[in-house]
């Protein structure tokens, strides 16, 4: 009996401790405690629960905005409203079929006016694709592969992984991610520096260093699944990679520097697409694809 009582009491205490963060929020909302008291209780609850501080979707959104704005210093947007609308229809449709169908402010796609073969997914769902890469797509299914690959990076949070581990220490020092904490000017300055460093790390990975082969293969695997889920033939990815292989020049910029060789990517996805059959470009899809891509 005594052991049973001890067990019940122990379990109850654990449940109460785990619920401390929630109690703090509820109590503060109800005006039962001061913000400081609520914050102390919350911090205690999180420590007990070993909760790991993470970026919120809103934090990711603001990082992503600055990453894209920084990239657009180097790469001009391709101001073609028909094409950008087409990319957004396809891209947002593919994102809806992914395991990350939503971001803080939704997915948004933009073509870049460069011959370089490149594409990038920034945190928050801001995705850019170069004209050079668009030219590697000979049909809509191939273009779907490009966009689904970028959504695949979003699914797996690859851009955030590109942030140097040491940055998180800097971010933690600023207290920037601590809920309920207000800042003085020096802390805001430190937080802004940490923010700029995070943005810089992602930009460097995007168009210079790359994420590494493993993460690119992971995004390809996601692309195959997303394409199949929406009704595209995943063989479109293989066709696009084969075209890219013909177009890429040794020593080139963009994917040549940041991605595995197209042939290696084809080898990796081959088992997953073997049963999908060859690409047959449907008349309806091909017509709208060619219309949207005219002049690319």
């Amino acid at each position, binding site marked *: 009996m005594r052991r049973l009582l001890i067990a019940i009491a122990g379990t109850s205490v654990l449940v109460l401790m*785990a*619920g401390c963060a929630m109690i703090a929020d509820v109590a503060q909302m109800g005006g039962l405690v001061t913000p400081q008291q609520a914050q102390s209780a919350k911090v205690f609850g999180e420590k007990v629960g070993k909760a790991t501080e993470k970026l919120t979707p809103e934090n990711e959104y603001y990082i992503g905005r600055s990453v894209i704005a920084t990239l657009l210093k180097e790469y001009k947007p391709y101001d073609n409203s028909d094409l950008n609308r087409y990319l957004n229809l396809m891209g947002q449709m593919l994102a809806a079929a992914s395991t990350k169908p939503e971001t803080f*402010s939704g997915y948004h796609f933009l073509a870049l006016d460069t011959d370089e073969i490149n594409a990038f997914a920034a945190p928050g769902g801001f995705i850019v694709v170069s004209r050079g890469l668009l030219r590697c797509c000979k049909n809509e299914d191939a273009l779907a592969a490009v966009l689904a690959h970028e959504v695949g990076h979003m699914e797996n949070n690859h851009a955030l992984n590109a942030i140097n581990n040491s940055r998180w220490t800097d971010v933690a020092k600023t207290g920037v991610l601590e809920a309920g904490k207000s800042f003085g000017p020096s802390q805001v300055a430190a937080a802004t520096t940490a923010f700029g460093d995070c943005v810089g790390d992602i930009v460097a990975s995007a168009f210079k260093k790359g994420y590494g082969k493993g993460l690119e293969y992971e995004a390809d695997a996601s692309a195959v699944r997303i394409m199949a889920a929406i009704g595209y033939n995943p063989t479109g990815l293989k066709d696009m990679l084969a075209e890219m292989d013909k177009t890429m020049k040794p020593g080139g910029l963009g994917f040549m520097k940041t991605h595995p060789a197209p042939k290696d990517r084809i080898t990796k996805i081959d088992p997953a697409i073997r049963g*999908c059959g060859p690409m047959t470009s449907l008349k309806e899809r091909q017509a709208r694809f060619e219309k949207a891509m005219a002049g690319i």
Partner: protein
Amino acid sequence: MSRNRLLFALVLLCSAAVFVWAAGAKMMNVQVKQSELRSSPSGLGSVVATVRLGDSLTVIEEKGVWTKVSKDDKVGWIPTASLTKGTVKIDSGGKDAQASASSDEMALATKGFNSDIESKFKQNNKDIDFTWVNKMERFKVSLDEIRTFMKQGRLDAEKGGAK
């Protein structure tokens, strides 16, 4: 301490634990700017209701990356990643702030990487132009437009892509 008092204290402790567990398991807050409750756990499911940043929802069940919730008399599915157990403060510094904030809320809003930090970042990097980022954000398509696009392209999510 007598046996009765010990039992009484234990009952109180258990009751509090059950309350916390029940309350913690049921309510979550929306942590994206806007989301839809859908009739099925899919981004292509019909829209049942629209919810906004900070809305509190009652959790019914989870399935994969989706959570079934209710708000008022509406029941639908929402991506689990769009929900948080924590409180959500409206970023009163942002142009999209949905509520006017008291001075306390203003102080609390100054956390995380938010519009305040972005403003400072812009001040420090005057050569970075956000015009096209803002234009990108205006590229939006509706579920009806996506469905029409799928129909016209003979895309069928039910059949999948294997030919």
